[in-house]
């Protein structure tokens, strides 16, 4: 993994009204490893207590790694993916 990659940290998209929840699932990835992304575009959708939240790309670049599979559970603060900025 390149040192230049940017982590997509689930903490940054955690909704304020789900403070007391610390588990979620990845409902959908809209990209694969290697897909070019534009900062701000939704690249995934996570679900916390039946609420869907879009995860925007934090930078323009390429998806280097997807670390949580679709339908897999993760914990608040887990890194979902890494992006190499361009």
């Amino acid at each position, binding site marked *: 993994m390149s040192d230049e990659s940017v982590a997509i940290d689930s903490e940054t998209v955690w909704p304020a009204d789900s403070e007391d929840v610390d588990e979620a*699932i990845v*409902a*959908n*990835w*809209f*990209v*694969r490893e290697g*897909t*070019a*992304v*534009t900062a701000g*575009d939704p690249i995934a*959708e*996570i*679900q916390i207590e*039946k609420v*869907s939240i879009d995860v925007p790309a934090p930078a323009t670049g390429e998806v280097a790694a997807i670390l949580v599979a*679709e*339908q897999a559970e993760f914990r608040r603060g887990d890194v979902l993916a890494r992006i190499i900025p361009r």
Partner: protein
Amino acid sequence: MAEADETEQTDGAESTTGRELTMSRAMVDAIAAEMRTDDDVFVLGEDVADYGGIFDSTEGLLDEFGREKIMDVPISETGFIGAAVGAAQAGMRPIAELMFVDFFGVGMDQIYNQMAKNTYMSGGSVNVPMVLMTAVGGAYNDAAQHSQTLYGTFAHLPGMKVVVPSTAYDAKGLMHTAIRDDDPVVYMFHKRLMGIGWMPAPAGPKTPVPEDDYTIEFGEADVKREGDDVTVVTLGLHVHRALEAADELDGAVDTEVIDLRTLVPLDTETVLESVRKTGRLLVVDEDYHSFGVSGEIIARATEGALDDLSAVGRVTMPDAPIPYARPLEQEVNPGTEDIVEAVRDLAGTADE
């Protein structure tokens, strides 16, 4: 009218951006694009605004277009579908959402006696350019009043075009076509294909979706997989189950899978071409067995290619209310293994 899209869709094809959309997002993409360019397009239905449609069919539209264009309505199918019919006749292009197709009974007079017939009964002096979109299908234990597809019911009654997408790519193109059509279109989306978090979709419906607008003509079935031995004709969720079955049979039976995409108009020619080649036809339908899509496809195949046919069959839901209990519903809803078995049977390779 936009030109028909000519992009070939193949597995893993790169779209213009590399993004892959769920079927619900692809539908919303098309609705939003049409609303941006045509002020007459608006959406009304139960929970379409704040909630974004209970199966995400209108997710995010309220934020962009506001409550005048994305209208939550009371539980009043006769009222709001009737309002859509009137608005359409007055020149607008409403998209009304019937939350579950199973609720058709409470609004059927407006759907069938008004929406579907008014152009004919007015001698062509009014058009009814509206879309009635509705969630169909089971396989998630929602019982007999929330799990039907009713494809045959709507396709049987004249005056409505009937659309059943199976992938995100198709859903977007067909939605553009539906909204632009000057006649009423019933757009039936399968809940299991939408890609909502609490109801995982199979692997197939999420596809690359171009950002640009494109249309898919009605009446053009799509050969989702080519094969020489057996033709499987299906639609909706069962396109994906048929493709799974075909993969499982790979090497034993070369299975062609045809996705009808629209029931009205129906692309009989693609079905006939295929059965002339394979000589064997299996229809897979999540709707009830009798008096429906499966019988119609088989009838058209026998009318048009009787001499080429050596075997026909169908895998369908039995003529009974859909059970709530998981093992019972799994038993009656056609599964991949049921399709495998039926194809083997037709191909004459069933285990003795």
